[in-house]
């Protein structure tokens, strides 16, 4: 499905507002929309809402071989898929330009900033290591999925626990969650992406663009940073010409944003931890809790049903109902099966390794490999001509020359 384009007047309207330092949702230029982080019941599952934009991130791991180039390291794999779930413009399966850019940015933010301690993921050097996989699902695209997914990804990584392993010589045992407490991944730092959008030759700049703003922007600059004021990624996309000081301004703003968001994440993690300790209700069931206007809840319900014996006689009753149906609409059950049941009790063995049953008689495939090898008579018939021709080939060849019609 194609994305419905923005009408010119709408475009104008938005741009004018931006020019007057106003945004449609009443935010200031450097404000984020309100951020909500929730964790699933399963570990390493994080759900982030940034305004109306929603992203789900799930971290998983499995044991595999390490890369030849880095035998002492585990492997981190980041997968961002823009499915039609998020917005109709995206197509299932094929990666769009946007998708590639997004997933590369995520990769650079998480991998190349080396926020995850790869050595700690190694089980047996050069033989076995953990493959950690981050799946990021964009559920709803209302602008700035990039920041949202980076938040989701990093908090999911922080929330995740991998099963414990113990190595005794050759033996490698992976302990189930019941046997031993799973261990968290060791994160060096928490890089986050902050994107800045530019309008009208970079004259105006906004943080956390909404969908509409993204549609009218001329370019975007993404700053990846952690709370130690270390830049982890920097990227300018779109067709625009920037000047150095603009870049610097962005990075300085990013600092404040990152520190704030990082705090939020830590807080959320803490809450989840407490909830689990208290055996409280956690997970998404809370997210879709019945308190919203559009939502509804049916409390756990007892289903009363007659006991087995009842259903037994139910069976008998159904049996007779069946014959009824068989009688009243004759077409109901084709008589094919009846026939087969009646006479097909006899299995015909045609040759060694070839048997048949039921209607229709032997198939065209009767003389196939096994059949033919054994089935001498068939084979003979087949082969006589071949042989014959082989013997008197001259004759056959001249017959070929001879003219049939004159």
């Amino acid at each position: 499905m194609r994305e419905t384009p923005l009408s010119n007047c709408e475009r104008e309207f938005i741009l004018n507002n931006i020019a007057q330092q106003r945004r449609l949702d009443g935010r200031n230029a450097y404000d984020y929309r309100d951020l909500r982080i929730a964790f699933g019941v399963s570990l390493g599952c994080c759900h982030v809402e940034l305004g109306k934009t929603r992203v789900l991130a799930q971290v998983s791991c499995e044991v595999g071989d390490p890369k030849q180039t880095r035998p002492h390291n585990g492997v981190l794999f980041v997968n961002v898929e823009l499915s039609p779930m998020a917005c109709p413009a995206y197509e299932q399966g094929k990666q769009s330009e946007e998708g590639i850019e997004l997933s590369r940015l995520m990769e650079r933010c998480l991998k190349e900033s080396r926020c995850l301690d790869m050595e700690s993921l190694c089980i047996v050097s050069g033989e076995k290591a953990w493959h950690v996989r981050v799946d990021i699902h964009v559920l709803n695209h209302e602008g700035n999925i990039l920041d949202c997914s980076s938040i989701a990804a990093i908090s999911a990584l922080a929330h995740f626990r991998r099963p414990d392993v113990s190595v005794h010589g050759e033996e490698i045992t992976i302990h189930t969650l019941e046997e031993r407490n799973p261990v968290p991944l060791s994160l060096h730092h928490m890089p986050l992406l902050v994107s800045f959008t530019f309008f009208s030759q970079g004259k105006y700049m906004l943080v956390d663009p909404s969908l509409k703003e993204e549609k009218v922007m001329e370019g975007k600059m993404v700053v990846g940073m952690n709370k130690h004021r270390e830049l982890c990624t920097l990227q300018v996309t779109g067709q625009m010409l920037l000047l150095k000081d603009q870049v610097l301004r962005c990075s300085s703003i990013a600092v404040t944003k990152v520190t704030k968001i990082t705090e939020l994440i830590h807080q959320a993690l803490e809450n989840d931890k407490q909830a689990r300790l208290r055996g409280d209700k956690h997970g998404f069931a809370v997210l879709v809790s019945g308190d919203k206007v559009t939502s509804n809840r049916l409390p756990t319900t007892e289903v009363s049903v007659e006991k087995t014996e009842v259903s037994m006689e139910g069976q008998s009753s159904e049996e007779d109902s069946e014959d009824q149906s068989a009688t009243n609409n004759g077409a109901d059950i084709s008589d094919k099966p009846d026939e087969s049941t009646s006479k097909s009790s006899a299995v015909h063995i045609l040759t060694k390794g070839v048997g048949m049953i039921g209607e229709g008689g032997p198939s065209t495939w009767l003389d196939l490999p096994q059949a033919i090898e054994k089935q001498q008579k068939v084979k003979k018939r087949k082969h006589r001509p071949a042989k014959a021709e082989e013997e008197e080939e001259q004759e056959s060849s001249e017959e070929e020359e001879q003219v049939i019609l004159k």
Partner: protein
Amino acid sequence: MPLDTRRLTGPESSQSPYNFAPVNKLDLTQLDKRPDGRSIKKLRPLFLRTNVVSQARGSSYIEMNETKVICAVYGPREVLRREDFSLKGQLTCDFKFTTFSCRQRRQYQQDSQEKDLSVLVLEALEPAVCLHKYPKSQINIFITVLQHDGSALSAAITCASVALASAGIEMYDLVVASSAAICGSVTLIDPTAQEEDALLKATVKPDNNAGSVTVAFLPSLSQVSAISSDGELSFEILNKSMQECVANCQKLYPVLEHTLVKHQQELEAGRS
């Protein structure tokens, strides 16, 4: 993360048990009798039949002892991609070994060898088909080798040409193919798989011949529509064995003829 998400995938580290089995070497240079008891110059019995795939426009099945090939022909269909549109008809060929057809387990995806063979079969058949009669449409040939015991290529070509004929596609002539393996002084006609890879492993003196030839031949136009050879061969030997293959094609031709005539008669019987 399995790479092929559309199939059930097993462990990569799995190996064929035959890798651990003792290998029995077969020396072709001094061999009086062939493993299957044929004489050097003898062809394997050829079994052909048509109409094996009910859904196809034309189809055929060929069997040379343990080499078993099935082929189906579909079309003429319309060309969907506007890029490869042409007023002349097009022929496509898709050659595949089943995973279990060979000694070593094969992959599901078409590998380079199969691609190469597809092209060879295609070029062998193209000269024989009256493509100008099928404007802006294409004819698809699908070949599957169920079991590979040598000379799969020649079997496939022969099989395909019969399938085309049985499909009622207009052709200038049938195509018959046959192959030979040369090792030193001996020339084995219609080699089996065992002989073929014995050939590859054969440690012959540098100036000695070791290789194989496959020739596709249009019998009644007496034209060679495809020829391919592997291994190191001297010019004379190659030429000689090529002639031999041509001769063998002539021998096989009547079998094809017989099969097709029978096929047609069955049709007639069906009509009346």
